[in-house]
């Protein structure tokens, strides 16, 4: 593969060019480690100016272990290609859905990968606590990049006890309500901009559909062993709105008890939608059917006109194209999402989201260089170019025009808009016993067997680890 050192352009421009060229390069060389590419287009040059800082890494290998699999994994690997080409390093990628179970096994056995992508800050915290010698603090180059390209809060998510252990990678926005623009137009509904309008719209829909076959909301929280997480997202979004970001932070950090009255109010609000037989569960059944419906299929009744709204993150767009590749996901298309409204349209707007973080288990120069690359705008732009839909990062220098799907663009707009207050998914930040344990199970029971608000909150509070 030809290496090129074209004249140095402005940084962003170079990256755009690199990105555009990348698309052609991809067909030329396919998967990096197995040479599975079949195209025989001529290799197009990549502008390597931005990569000179990483030095010559010819013959060096960096192993990466992540939760990201299948086509998304291919897109990840494609986004490393400019780095591989310009530095000569090889990135050995491995993704597994059993990542959370397997990573500790590998760490304990002395075969940790060089780099791992951690999907939850809570998991990062427990890894740092359990294996303090294995996870290394972030190197200088990457750390500086985080300061330059990310907001303070994203640095905080990767920080444990004052030390930066992880750098941000991808991001997603969860405060979305999916709907069908055409259905809304037909029925003459407006997109609600406050919580009250949202409730009013829901009531309107109930009124307009007296037979009860069509409901305002549909939902599904089934997800195998992680069943219940979509309900925790609901809850977090509403806590942000009814109690505000400050209380939210205290709640997530357990500075107030889980069963604090303000949290109980939020849960009651969630219940006024999710446990309201008039509102749910469009196209599927009653309230308890939410518990057995897979989250991947939770929004599908919208397409059949059986429900109007489905609260789910930006990444749900992939599920629409699975259902029907011809569905147009756009503001003027078949399905789209609006911002899950807050108390009022003018006040601070809370925004719930999530993301992955990069940790390193080795401090070899090539590992540090690769981690620095992942925090750079070059990588974010390369990744945006390689991904047709369903990806964005919180990198301030990400070129929005490279994001290819309308919902990704909208997500990035909200993420970088100062009038929105971003908060990270709370269950991802809480200790695993709660955030990947009792919070999930109790919210599931809350829906499945109509467990009372108080009992649910008390049980989660009781399960919070003491140490």
């Amino acid at each position: 593969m030809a290496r090129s050192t074209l004249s140095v352009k402005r940084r962003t421009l170079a990256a755009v060019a690199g990105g555009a060229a990348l698309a052609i390069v991809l067909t030329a060389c396919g998967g990096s480690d197995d040479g599975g590419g079949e195209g025989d287009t001529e290799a197009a040059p990549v502008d390597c100016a931005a990569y000179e800082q990483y030095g010559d890494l010819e013959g060096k290998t960096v192993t990466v272990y992540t939760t990201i699999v299948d086509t998304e994994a291919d897109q990840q690997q494609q986004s490393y290609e400019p780095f591989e080409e310009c530095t000569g390093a090889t990135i050995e990628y491995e993704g597994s859905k059993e990542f959370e179970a397997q990573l500790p096994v590998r760490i304990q056995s002395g075969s940790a990968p060089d780099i791992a992508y951690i999907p939850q800050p809570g998991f990062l915290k427990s890894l740092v606590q359990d294996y303090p010698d294995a996870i290394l603090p972030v190197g200088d180059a990457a750390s500086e990049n985080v300061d330059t390209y990310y907001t303070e809060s994203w640095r905080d998510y990767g920080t444990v006890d004052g030390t930066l252990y992880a750098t941000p990678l991808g991001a997603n926005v969860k405060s979305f309500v999916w709907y069908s623009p055409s259905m809304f137009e037909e029925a003459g509904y407006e997109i609600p901009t406050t919580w009250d309008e949202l409730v009013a719209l829901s009531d309107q829909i109930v009124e307009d559909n007296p037979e009860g076959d069509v409901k305002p909301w549909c939902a599904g929280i089934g997800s195998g062993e992680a069943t219940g997480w979509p309900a925790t997202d609901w809850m977090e979004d509403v806590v942000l709105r009814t109690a505000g970001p400050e209380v939210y932070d205290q709640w997530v950090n357990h500075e107030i008890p889980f069963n604090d009255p303000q949290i109980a109010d939020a849960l009651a609000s969630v219940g006024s939608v999710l446990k309201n037989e008039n509102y749910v569960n469009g196209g599927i059944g009653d309230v308890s059917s939410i518990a057995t419906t897979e989250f991947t299929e939770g929004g599908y009744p919208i397409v059949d006109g059986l429900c109007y709204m489905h609260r789910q993150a930006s990444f749900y767009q992939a599920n629409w194209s699975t259902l029907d590749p011809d569905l147009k996901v756009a503001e003027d298309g078949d399905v789209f999402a609006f911002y899950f409204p807050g108390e009022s349209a003018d006040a601070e707007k809370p925004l719930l989201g999530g993301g992955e973080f990069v940790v390193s288990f080795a401090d070899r120069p090539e590992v540090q260089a690769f981690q620095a690359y992942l925090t750079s705008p070059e990588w974010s732009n390369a990744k945006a170019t390689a991904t047709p839909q369903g990806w964005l990062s919180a990198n301030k220098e990400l070129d929005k025009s490279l994001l290819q799907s309308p919902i990704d663009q909208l997500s990035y707009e909200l993420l970088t808009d100062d009038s929105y207050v971003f908060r990270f998914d709370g269950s991802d930040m809480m200790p695993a016993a709660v955030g990947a344990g009792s919070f999930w199970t109790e919210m599931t029971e809350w829906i499945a067997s109509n467990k009372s608000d108080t009992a649910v909150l008390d049980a989660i509070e009781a399960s919070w680890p003491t140490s």
Partner: protein
Amino acid sequence: MSIPIPDTTIVDETPEQGKGVGKLDRLDRRAGALRRTTSSKSASIIAIVLAVLWTIPTFGLLVTSFRPAREIRRTGWWTAFSNPEFTLENYSDALYGSSTDFASYLVNSFVITLPAVIIPITLALLAAYAFAWIDFRGRNILFVAVFALQIVPIQVTLVPLLSQYVNWGIDGSFWPIWLSHSIFALPLAIFLLHNFMKDIPRELVEAARVDGAGHVRIFFTVLMPLLVPAIAAFGIFQFLWVWNDLLVALTFGSARDVAPITVRLAELSGSRGASWHLLPAGAFIAIIVPVIVFLALQRYFVRGLLAGSVKG
């Protein structure tokens, strides 16, 4: 005494061979007697009903695997016949949707499975023989201990084993996968084969001993030929377990170069399960090879424990 390698024994028992026919006649008569234990008409009905009931779920999945995603969510698979709308896309996505060649997963599955079947069965046969036919102190305690170790969950062995493999520098290759599968298979294999072996009439073994045969010769010439059906049966079980394994492959065969089909299937639905519609097709791709192997081997054990009839 005839040449006792298992292959010839098998050939001996195929019905085409002159020697086998007499045996089969006798077996047929006896089977006829046993069959008359229940009136054969109602028996046939029960058999058909059960077979149909057993197959409906899989059949439903097969039909589903050819339907477009939207139809899967909208109507039941049984409506597909009145209103046919089928696609091969699920299969092509499952097979060619990844950057890694599907054939290389298939090759890895084979390379993993063959030694992981042969090694534990051989070791288990020898151990089972020791437990069944060699008198030594502590035999029963050892046997019970081996039997009891079946319950150790594989998950607790992962860290200790992987640490060793890392020490030896063989992690990420085929060797730890073979070794691990062999270890995990041994307790059940020894238990099952021991029970088959112990049922072999004492006189046969004694007669060989009187002839001056040592344990090694008795094992190969007297017992092995009688155990072919048991070995075939356990062989196919072990084959299925290894072929369908994900955990061992994930932990010990981390590298893409050694990943079997199950690893690919586990990721078919995508990081967040969005490609759920590929799962039925994936499940079918995964069972094709085991079904072929089963059909190819079944005469060795479904057609019965022919060798066992020597007892009579």
